[in-house]
C-alpha cells in the first residue's frame, strides 16, 4: 500500500535522524538537506538508498540533485513509489 505524505515525512525524518543525528521533529518539508539538516552530498546518497528501501521507490542518481528540500523528496516519493 502506498505511503501518505505524512508517512513519507515521518519516514524521512527517521532516516535523517539516523544518518545526520538531527532530531526527527526538526525535519520539516521546507528544510534544505544541505543547509539545514547537515546532510552533505555523501550523506544524501545514504538518505536516498534508505528511502528507496523503505518506500519501494527507485531514485536515479540524475534525479537526486533535484531533491534540495525534504518537500522535494516527499513529492518525488509520492509520485514514484511502487
Amino acid at each position: 500500500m502506498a505511503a501518505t505524505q505524512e508517512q513519507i515525512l515521518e519516514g524521512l525524518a527517521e532516516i535523517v535522524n539516523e544518518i545526520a543525528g538531527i532530531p526527527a521533529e526538526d525535519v520539516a518539508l521546507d528544510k534544505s538537506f544541505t543547509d539545514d539538516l547537515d546532510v552533505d552530498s555523501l550523506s544524501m546518497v545514504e538518505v536516498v538508498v534508505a528511502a528507496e528501501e523503505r518506500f519501494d521507490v527507485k531514485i536515479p542518481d540524475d534525479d537526486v540533485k533535484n531533491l534540495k528540500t525534504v518537500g522535494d523528496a516527499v513529492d518525488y516519493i509520492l509520485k514514484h513509489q511502487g
Partner: protein
Amino acid sequence: MNSTNHTVVVTGVGATTPLGGDASSTWEGLIAGRSGISLMEQDWAAELPVRIAASIAVDPGTVLPRPQARKLDRSAQFALIAAREAWADAGFTGKAGEDPSVDPDRLGAVVASGIGGVTTLLDQYDVLREKGVRKVSPHTVPMLMPNGPAANVGLEVGARAGVHTPVSACASGAEAIGYAIEMIRSGRADVVVAGGTEASIHPLPIVAFGNMMAMSKNNDDPQGASRPFDVNRNGFVMGEGSGVIVLESAEHAAARGARVYAEAVGQGISADSHHITQPEPSGNGIAHALQNLLDSTDLKPAEVAHINAHATSTPQGDVAEIKALRKIFGDDVDHMAISATKSMTGHLLGGTGGVETVASVLALHHRLAPPTINLDELDPEVDADVVRAEARPLPGEGPLVALNDSFGFGGHNVVLAFRTV
C-alpha cells in the same frame, strides 16, 4: 634565533589506548605495569592461530556521536578522540581562529597510520558481495584513505598550514611527529597537531602478520605474551589506539602563556636498505638514525636518561635496537633507563609512535620511567639497563632527555628526542 630554526615544544598530549581512554589513564596503566592484552572475544577469532590482542579500553562509539562515528574509519575515530584531548590539554578553547590565540593559516596537522582504513575496506567489500552495489557506503573512500585521520583532525582544529600523512609502517606515527617538528622549526607553522593511530584488529591483518611468523601465539597466557627483551619472547601482540601531541614554537607557546611539557629537540631518520621486513641485524640502520639525531641537534648522549624502545618482542628486532644504542652511545647506555611499553600496550603499529611519544613526554614531565613487564629472564644479548617490573624514578635534578624509537617494515628508522624544560 633566525626564522628557520625555531625551538619546538610540546604543549598538549592526548591518547586512547588499550590501557585507557585518555593520556592520564594510559600513563597510570603504564606506571602500574598493567597489561592491556586479552583473549579476543570476537566470534571470528575463535579459529585463528593468534587469538590475543590489545583492544581499545574505551570503545570510541561511547565517546563520539553516532552520526559522526559512522563516517569515520575506526583509526580516524581514535585519532580524533586523541587529538581533541591534546588540543584541549594545550589550552585551546575552540578551532583555530575561533580561539584567537592560534591562526588557522599557521596551524598544521600530521597524523599517520601504518595500514590506513583497512577495516573499512574489508567490511565494505563484504557489503558489496553480500548486499550489492547500492549498499556500499558513499563514505568508503574518505574512510579508507590513509590520510583520512590527518584530514579529519585538520578539519576538527581548523588547520590550513598543511595536513600530511607520512606512511612508514610501524614508524608512521613517529615520522608524523618528526615531520611536524620540521614544519615548526622551518617556519611553515606555529602549531602542529601530530601523532599516530591504528585500528587493524580484524581477521585478515592478524592472519597475515601471523603467517609472517611475526606475532606471538601465546594464546594461553595473553598478559604474558608480549615480553620484549625476555629470552622467551616470540613475536609481537597487535594493539590498537592513538596518541597525539600538540607541538608549538617556543615563542608561540610563551606568547599565549601555555604550559610546556618538554622541548621537542629533533629527530633522527634513516633507512636500512637491507630487507623488506627483517631488521638489519647488526643495528647499523638504526645506528645511522641515532647518529643523524646527534649531528642535527645539540643533544649530548650524557643527557639521555630514558629511552622508550621500539622493542616489539620479536627475537631479532629487540637485539638489533640495543646493538645500535651501544654503537652510538657506548658506555653512556649504562645510565639510560630503557622501557619497552609494548609489554603492556601491545604493538599499535602506526599508532605506536604517537602513544609512545605521549609516554616519553609524560616520563620526562613526571621524571619516572615506566616498567617493562614480563621480563623474567633478560636476553644475554641485551646489554642495557632495562627498567623491569617496577617504574623507576629518573634523576630529580637537571635537564633530562628521553628518546622514542620507532622502526617499520620497509626498513624505516625514526628516533625522536625530547628534553625537560
